[in-house]
């Protein structure tokens, strides 16, 4: 029986190649899209799953808020670790870490350095209780329990010491950041890549807490500082009762934090499963984007299924005769439906094969759209089940309606071709129209989305951020450098003719990192605390980036002087910049500083965010960046290589060199650009599939009207009159689709635009453009078919009818 069904299915495919091509290609694209996205989802959601006790591990994070502003931070104030240890019950293990991305590593005995290592962290031995590692050497209990020790992964060992045995490596010395000397006390296997915490070098945290200068740097006693590097991981004994832990955290807030008027701090308990989706230096996935991608993939598959339903029901009259005959031969309705399902299954299986090819193709050609480490294992159980499930689902979705409709025919009428006037067929016509409308609604929605997102990105690119990003290069310099080489480098660069100004700073002017703290204003006995964003820079910092100084003077490389921005000036209660000059404040609760100048507001983060109150202060010990502004008309690549050369001479161990600031700024919108690319791609697919569907549907319906068209021609209708007559029906459908598409896309895009502090007003003209494009597409497709029919000789048509 099945063989008979399959034979019929196969011959039907061969007989109507256009139908077969549309079905197979459309479904293949839909299946491939779903398959790739499914793999992306399982990749992104599969992170950290291998950690034993996955469900019990959490990170404590901080949100500081002031009025409407919320400043989330993945870190906690450093003293939080001890506080949680002492005051929160039901914590099985607790580990503090202090992330030191881009640490400089060197050998103790020789002046060899290995350049900057991305995954260096300071932590304590409890860390390995929470995130167990496979120990190759050393004592897990003791390796990190005293200052100046380090646990290395196997690959770090090999990188620093070559191929030596574990026993030889233990006890070796290394120098971190040119100043911290440590001894290797443990060696572990490399951390697997599907983890978010993939550190390679673990220095004992007590190395930092036992040094006065380091304590100051990490703000070891300060509750007002939140640094994203200072994180806290806990393993809880009752992870189901998070609210009781939250209560304990609230008590810590009450006990240790004295929040000023209007300010509040909250701690959150973030499950390990969320870690991958929150700000993380290694790799961040965006749940919103992933959801968007899934929806797109499902939509594309749905459009393909709708094509199937449309074309099959349109061709019902052709199939009806066969169905009628089979009924008189004794087939039951169930058997007929089974036949139809197996036919659809054949198509879906062919589509599946093509989809696998398409997947392979898209993984290669659209590599930048998918995570770099992701690999698709076609034979994994998950993938096989997913694909088979998808094929079955697609078959059922596509075939159920045509099957019910076709097999419901009365056999006598079906055989006699009397179906045109029966009720069921009018229903089919109705469904078909609605599906076409729905397809075009989705396509128009996609087009609008792409146009509006591109528009916003263009808007962001043109929006002034308040500084000049051109002709600026920056590079990393060693952390806590006491050799004075920073100043030497600055001087040597200043001597270069093409250099306009050079500045040393703690961070570049605009970056993804954020350092927030509070500053005090003393009014007699009363102390007012104000939240600020802080940047550390020398006197030429604002000049190098051409941030306009509204009033006052630059910092004269004096740690008692600060610059503030307009926003902070307003927070201080001044309307005019000149009034803020001379304002006395206290930084870190100990250093008296004076406002010597007010700079114009600029965006130190992406345009997602409002400008925060900002203080620029001078703290040369913590300079880690060198910023260079070039003269106009300098050849950029040449300048970069000359700068790199100077740098190499002073810091032979540094290998990253200078980078262009404008490229960094452009990178702020990487995820939006990616979204735009993916959406454009999805739009092309959606249009392609709906276009194919319309092509097939109109081919069929127009072929059915051949006789009518010929008669009208004989009666004297012109080609254009007939064209209007035929396409009018489709135009109405497009118009309805447009109206239906506008409202949801409007709401969605409004929501998306809301994320940006700087956003374009909703561009209505682009909506109209999208509608017009869909209209044009429809005219072209329907017009092509109509013209072919119109151009046929009527006498020939009417004779053969």
């Amino acid at each position: 029986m099945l063989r008979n069904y399959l034979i019929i299915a196969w011959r039907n495919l061969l007989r109507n190649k256009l139908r077969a091509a549309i079905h197979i290609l459309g479904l293949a694209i839909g299946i491939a899209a779903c398959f790739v996205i499914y793999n992306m989802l399982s990749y992104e959601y599969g992170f950290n799953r291998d950690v034993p006790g996955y469900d019990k591990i959490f990170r404590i994070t901080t949100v500081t808020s002031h009025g409407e502003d919320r400043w989330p931070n993945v870190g906690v104030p450093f003293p939080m670790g001890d506080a949680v240890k002492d005051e929160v019950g039901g914590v099985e293990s607790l580990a503090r870490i202090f992330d030191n991305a881009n640490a400089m590593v060197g050998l103790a005995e020789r002046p060899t350095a290995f350049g900057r290592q991305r995954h260096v962290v300071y932590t304590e031995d409890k860390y390995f209780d929470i995130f167990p590692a496979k120990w190759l050497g050393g004592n897990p209990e003791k390796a990190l329990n005293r200052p100046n020790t380090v646990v290395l992964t196997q690959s770090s060992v090999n990188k620093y010491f070559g191929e030596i045995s574990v026993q030889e490596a233990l006890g070796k010395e290394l120098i971190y950041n040119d100043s911290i000397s440590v001894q290797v006390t443990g060696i572990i296997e490399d951390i697997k890549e599907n983890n978010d915490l993939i550190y390679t070098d673990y220095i004992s945290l007590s190395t930092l807490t036992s040094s006065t200068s380091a304590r100051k740097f990490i703000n070891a006693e300060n509750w007002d500082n939140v640094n994203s590097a200072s994180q806290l991981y806990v393993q809880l004994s009752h992870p189901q009762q998070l609210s009781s832990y939250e209560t304990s955290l609230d008590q810590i807030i009450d006990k240790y934090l004295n929040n000023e008027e209007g300010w509040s701090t909250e701690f959150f308990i973030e499950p390990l499963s969320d870690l991958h989706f929150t700000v993380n230096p290694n790799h961040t996935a965006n749940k919103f984007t992933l959801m968007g991608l899934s929806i797109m993939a499902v939509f594309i598959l749905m459009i393909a299924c709708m094509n199937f339903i449309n074309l099959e029901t349109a061709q019902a009259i052709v199939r009806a005769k066969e169905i009628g005959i089979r009924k008189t031969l004794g087939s039951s309705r169930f058997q007929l439906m089974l036949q139809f399902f197996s036919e659809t299954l054949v198509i879906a299986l062919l589509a599946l094969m093509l989809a696998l090819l398409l997947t392979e193709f898209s993984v290669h050609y659209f590599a930048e759209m998918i995570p770099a480490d992701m690999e698709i294992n076609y034979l994994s159980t998950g993938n096989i089940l997913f694909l088979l499930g998808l094929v079955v689902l697609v078959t059922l979705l596509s075939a159920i309606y045509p099957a019910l409709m076709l097999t419901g025919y009365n056999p006598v009428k079906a055989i006699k071709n009397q179906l045109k006037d029966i009720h069921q067929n009018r229903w089919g016509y109705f469904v078909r129209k609605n599906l076409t409308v729905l397809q075009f609604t989705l396509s128009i929605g996609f087009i609008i989305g792409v146009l509006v997102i591109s528009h916003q990105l263009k808007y962001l690119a043109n929006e002034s951020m308040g500084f000049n990003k051109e002709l600026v290069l920056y590079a990393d310099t060693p952390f806590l450098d006491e050799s004075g080489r920073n100043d030497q480098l600055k001087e040597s660069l200043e001597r270069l003719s093409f250099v306009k100004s050079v500045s040393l700073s703690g961070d570049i002017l605009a970056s993804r990192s954020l350092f927030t703290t509070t500053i005090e204003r003393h009014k007699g006995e009363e102390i007012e605390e104000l939240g600020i964003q802080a940047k550390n820079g020398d006197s030429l910092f604002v000049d190098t980036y051409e941030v306009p100084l509204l009033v006052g003077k630059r910092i004269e490389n004096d740690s008692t002087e600060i610059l503030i921005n307009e926003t902070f000036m307003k927070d201080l209660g001044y309307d005019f910049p000149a009034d803020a000059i001379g304002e006395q404040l206290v930084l870190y609760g100990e250093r008296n500083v004076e406002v010597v100048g007010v700079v114009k507001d600029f965006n130190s983060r992406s345009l997602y965010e409002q400008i925060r109150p900002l203080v620029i202060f001078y703290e040369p010990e913590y300079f880690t960046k060198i910023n260079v502004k070039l003269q106009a008309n300098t050849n950029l690549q040449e300048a970069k290589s000359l700068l790199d050369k100077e740098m190499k001479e002073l810091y032979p161990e540094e290998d990253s060199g200078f980078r262009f600031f404008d490229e960094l700024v452009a990178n702020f919108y990487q995820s939006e650009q990616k979204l735009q690319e993916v959406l454009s791609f999805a739009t092309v697919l959606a249009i392609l599939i709906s276009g194919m569907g319309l092509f097939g549907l109109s081919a069929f319906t127009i072929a059915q009207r051949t006789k009518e068209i010929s008669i009208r021609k004989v009666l004297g209708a012109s080609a254009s009159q007939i064209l209007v007559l035929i396409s009018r029906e489709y135009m109405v459908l497009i118009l309805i689709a447009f109206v239906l598409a506008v409202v949801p896309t409007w709401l969605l895009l409004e929501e998306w635009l809301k994320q940006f502090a700087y956003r374009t007003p909703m561009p209505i003209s682009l909506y109209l453009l999208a509608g017009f494009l869909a209209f044009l597409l429809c005219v072209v497709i329907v017009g092509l078919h109509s013209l072919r029919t119109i151009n046929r000789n009527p006498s020939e048509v009417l004779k053969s009818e």
Partner: protein
Amino acid sequence: MIKLSNIDKYVDSKFQRVFILKGIDLEIEQGEFVTLMGPSGAGKSTLLNIIGLLDDDYVGDYEFEGEMVNKMKEKQRHALHKKEFGNIFQAYHLIDELTVYENIETPLLYRSVSSSERKSIVAELLDRFNMVAKKDLFPAQLSGGQQQLVGIARAIAGKPRVLLADEPTGNLHSNQAKQIMEVFAELNREGTTIIQATHAEENAAYGNRLLEIVDGKIEEDKILIK
């Protein structure tokens, strides 16, 4: 075997009820070869469809072997149709996508006949109608007469006791028509009950009973003596 009592079939249009069949009383015994004749539009096809269980939209009683067909559930009726009836059409109605062999095989598939048995039945039928050489051709590659032979082979493959033929020779030349009628006569001799509708006087001669249908009524019912 078949007993129709007071069968009416009508369609309701806006102003009036139009009867297609009116007050049909008819009994057909097993082994009969009945011919329906009458002007176009008289209701022959309609009657055949009712007898063949392809149309259940009528009033009146229909007994088949003592069972009330009009009281049966859809499922029972379908089973009865499958077991007892074979249909032959004026336009042959072969499945275009299937070969001669496969067309004949199809009703057997619906009757869950085992593969080996199917093979022998189809081979026997092909042999009987001299179609062995043509078994892999598609309907479009056959002449009308050959197509109708396939149609008959297909109709009798399931070994039905009643064969219903609606103008089986309507599209054929007289030679071909004669051949088909001889096949019918032979089948009838072997015990199959045959009911055919036709316009051709000479076809009626192969049967043993002739019904004249006019305007939805049986005008005349005569036994033919050969």
